[in-house]
Each structure stands twice: as structure tokens, then as C-alpha cells.
């Protein structure tokens, strides 16, 4: 089932030009893609490629200049009021920097249950129990629900952000560089968590990232963006195994790799041990 359709989306920003004249900068240029229910679509690209702007439009954090966003069969491009509130319930975002996206003066319980109170949902078992259940789901100690964000490590703080996104049972979670700021060992754990949660609940991800190796672990399909356009869109196997576009090939070739000979030797040793 198609959950989200982004059709011919364009986003222009006006930038101050010479002599007080304004010029426009096209950040996203005629972008279209679908997201199926339960799948992970990755959007990759370098800085300035328009991937984050695309994500923000899909999340209705930005309005597109042209084009439409259809969610669950409803055109939400210009949705207001109740309609927008329902959309906000179904679509949640996890940001890159967990500390700047968590209110430092709120307890974890209050942060995690905020989406519930915004949506006017009163959990039957109470806010405390709801928060603790969510904390358990993302691998945090539920006894810490009265602590503040500063008392957690970066990886734990990102888990708080994920727990908050899950509070209202979303159908789509948009991860904007959600693991980019984390150390590699923590990154692996958070990726695993994201995949487990999807397997349990069957929601979709739009996974925005610049790191192709990370994307490859988590996505089903991938869109490669360059200068505001999608240059290639296909399954993970196709894009990584048989890239069609020159830019995709350049990008894949530039990813640093651990010397494959050394890596193979190490794995050989691991197996024989």
C-alpha cells in the first residue's frame, strides 16, 4: 500500500541579491517519489543536494513552492487545522542532534509523552507508565524517566528522540541524519534498534543521510539526490550493485573503504577461531 506520494515538488528560497533585487534559489527541483507502508526509503546526497529540504516538505515542516504531498490518500500539501493535526500524529521526525531537539528543562517522561498531550491522547495506564513502556521499547532504563536529557549520553539521548517519535504510533518516521552524530559502535546499535522497531510495528521510514554505508544497512530503496534533483531511484541491490547514473557511481567510488584484503583476512581468522 502506498503511504506517501511526493509529486513534482519544487522548493524555491529567495536570497538577497545585488542592489536589493531578490534572486531565487531552487533547493528542490521537481522531485517525485512514493513510500510504501513498512518500507524504508533512503534519501542520500552531499551537502546542498536538497535531501533535508525534501524531508522537511514530506514532514510538512516546509511548504513546497509547487507540487503535492499525498499521505494515506489525502492531499496534505496545504492541510490546516484538524487535517494537519491528524497528519502530525501519523508522521514523526527524528533529528540529527538529540540534545538540541530535546528540551533540556523537561524530564524524559515529559519529553516522551509530549506528542500524546499535543494530540489530546490520555493513555489509559497514565503518562508515567506510557513513558516507561516506551523507554523499555527503545532500550532505556524505565527507572530513569525523571532524569533530564543532560544526564544521558548521545546514543541514549537519540533513543529518547526515537521513543518520542513512537509515542503516537506513527505510520511514517522521518530520520534526518539520525545516526550521523553518533560514534560508530553506538551508531550500529541505534541502526539495529530502528530496524527492530520497524519489524515490530510495521511503519515506514524516510531515512535521510550522507553516509552511504549506513544507508545500505537499513534501506529497502534509495533515492540519490544531486543539486536538488533525484538522479537515481531504485532498490538497494540495484543502486549499490549496479548504479546507472554517473553521479551515483562517483559517490559510491568516493566512499572510503577498509582495505578489503586486510578485512577478508580478519574475517577468515574470526571464522576459524
Amino acid at each position, binding site marked *: 500500500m502506498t503511504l506517501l506520494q511526493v509529486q513534482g515538488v519544487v522548493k524555491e528560497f529567495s536570497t538577497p541579491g545585488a542592489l536589493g533585487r531578490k534572486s531565487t534559489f531552487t533547493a528542490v527541483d521537481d522531485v517525485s517519489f512514493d513510500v510504501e507502508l513498512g518500507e524504508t526509503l533512503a534519501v542520500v546526497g552531499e551537502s546542498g543536494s536538497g535531501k533535508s529540504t525534501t524531508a522537511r516538505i514530506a514532514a510538512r515542516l516546509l511548504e513546497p513552492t509547487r507540487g503535492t504531498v499525498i499521505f494515506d490518500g489525502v492531499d496534505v500539501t496545504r492541510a490546516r487545522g484538524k487535517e494537519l493535526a491528524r497528519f502530525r500524529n501519523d508522521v514523526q521526525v527524528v533529528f540529527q542532534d538529540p540534545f538540541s531537539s530535546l528540551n533540556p528543562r523537561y524530564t524524559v517522561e515529559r519529553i516522551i509523552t509530549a506528542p500524546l498531550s499535543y494530540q489530546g491522547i490520555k493513555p489509559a495506564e497514565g503518562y508515567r507508565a506510557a513513558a516507561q513502556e516506551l523507554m523499555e521499547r527503545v532500550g532505556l532504563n524505565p527507572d530513569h524517566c525523571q532524569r533530564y536529557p543532560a544526564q544521558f549520553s548521545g546514543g541514549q539521548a537519540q533513543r529518547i528522540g526515537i521513543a518520542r517519535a513512537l509515542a503516537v504510533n506513527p505510520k511514517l518516521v522521518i530520520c534526518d541524519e539520525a545516526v550521523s552524530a553518533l560514534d560508530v559502535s553506538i551508531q550500529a546499535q541505534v541502526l539495529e534498534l530502528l530496524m527492530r522497531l520497524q519489524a515490530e510495528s510495521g511503519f515506514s521510514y524516510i531515512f535521510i543521510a550522507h553516509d*552511504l554505508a549506513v544507508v545500505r544497512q537499513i534501506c529497502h530503496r534509495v533515492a540519490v539526490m544531486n543539486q536538488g534533483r533525484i538522479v537515481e531511484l531504485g532498490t538497494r541491490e540495484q543502486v549499490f550493485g549496479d548504479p546507472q547514473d554517473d553521479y551515483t557511481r562517483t559517490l559510491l567510488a568516493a566512499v572510503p573503504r*577498509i582495505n578489503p584484503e586486510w578485512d577478508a583476512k580478519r574475517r577468515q581468522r574470526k571464522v576459524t577461531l
Partner: protein
Amino acid sequence: MSDELFVVEDLTVTTSTGRGPVDVVKNVSFTVGRDETLGIVGESGSGKSMTALAVLGLLPRGARTSGSVRLDGTELLGRSDRELRPIRGNAISMVFQDPLSSLNPYYTVGLQIEEMYRTHRGGSRKAARQVVIEALEQVRIPDAGRRIDQYPHQFSGGMRQRVMIAMALCCSPSLLIADEPTTALDVTVQAQILELLAELQSTTGTGMIFITHDLAVISSIAQRVLVMRSGDPVEYGTAEQVFSDPQHDYTRMLLDAVPRIDDEVAS
């Protein structure tokens, strides 16, 4: 003269915190040969940057060091700022992660490189200008004669990092310390900068310490590797040893955690 250009022995860095002194670098030893690159790799808080700062005497106030740091047999540890000044930027220079915060936005890049060159080497501004143009050409900045008079904001991220490298190399240092020099760059730009560094090193014979959290980057640039964790040196050996036959669980865990671009992935 021995092959070992740079020797660090039992380097310990202690900083004072509200809860008393903490060793942020503990008994770290390594050597860097001429023409050789040592990679220091670790996660955040591993002490890899502190090690580099300690070597140049750039630690925050209140930090204490012990051990030995020798460049060409000369002890550097415990020297005053005044004694270190002729060495910093001259015999040992450094490239940091963020070129925008290392460059002064109010001065042209040419003036900034020139200042550094003339501080160490003296000479006329005219002569220095020629050196700067050559330095910019050496790091492949096109149209260097015109770009020299531009300001940092007129350069892209990759070009700015090239400016920093030109500045670091203009006094022909014997050791270059690069602390996460490609971390803030896009992957295609990163590949170009890594290639440039390796190439410059092979032509100038500069020893290099390359600090990063990225094991794949280390694998492509370093001949020797030091793995650090919470201030401790975990593993030290040739790149081939560390990557193909790691001896420590932490190194193994790190290597396992690196996402791969080429492998089969379980679906």
C-alpha cells in the same frame, strides 16, 4: 640521524575537573618515521585530540603532562610557549577539522599564510607572496594568483581545507598533525583531500599524524595505527596488523561496527 622522526614515550595528560584530576591520556607511546603516516583512531572522548594538543603544548590551562615527546631527538614536553613558538607551524604544523573557525574572516587567505610564513622565515612581503602562490598551487587551488587575494568565505569547504593545508606546509614542516581534516567534508571532496595529502607527503617526505574516528579513512592513508579508548592506548601496530589481525576485543568490536559499502548485507 635515526629513522624515527618523532618519538612519544609514556605521554600522560592530566586535567583538573571539579571532581579532582583525571588522566585523559594515559601512557601513550608511538613513533612516526619520515615519510610515514601514523593514524590515531578512537571514538569521542578517547583522548586522540588531546594527544595531538599535548605534543604542541596547546593544552587547556590547568592540564599537566608527563612523559617524553621528541622531534629529531629534541625534547618538546615541558617547554614554555616562547620556546615552542618557533617550532609550531614551522617544524610541526597542524590542520584542524573546521577550516572556517581556523581562518580569520577579515583577512584574505594570502595575508594569513604570508603572516605565518614571515613569522618563521622573515623576508620581504613580495618574496613571501610568491611562496604563498606556490603553496596554493601545490595544493591544487586553481588560479592561485587571483585566489590569494580572496577571503575565506569565497572558498568552498574543500578549497578552505586546501588553504589550511597550504598554510601548514608552507614552512616545510618535518611533521604534520591533521586532526579530523576531512570529517566535515562531503565524501567526494574527502577523497580528493586524502589523495592530495598522500601525494604531498610522498613528494615532501613529511611525517604525518592523522587523527580520525573513521577506520576506513585510516585504512586508506596510514601505515601505522594507534587505537585509543578513554585515554588508553588499546592497540598499536602496522595498519596491516591492526586491520587484518587485531589483538584486542575493543579493536575487533570497532571493526565489526563499521558499516560496509561493498559486503553482502543480511536482508
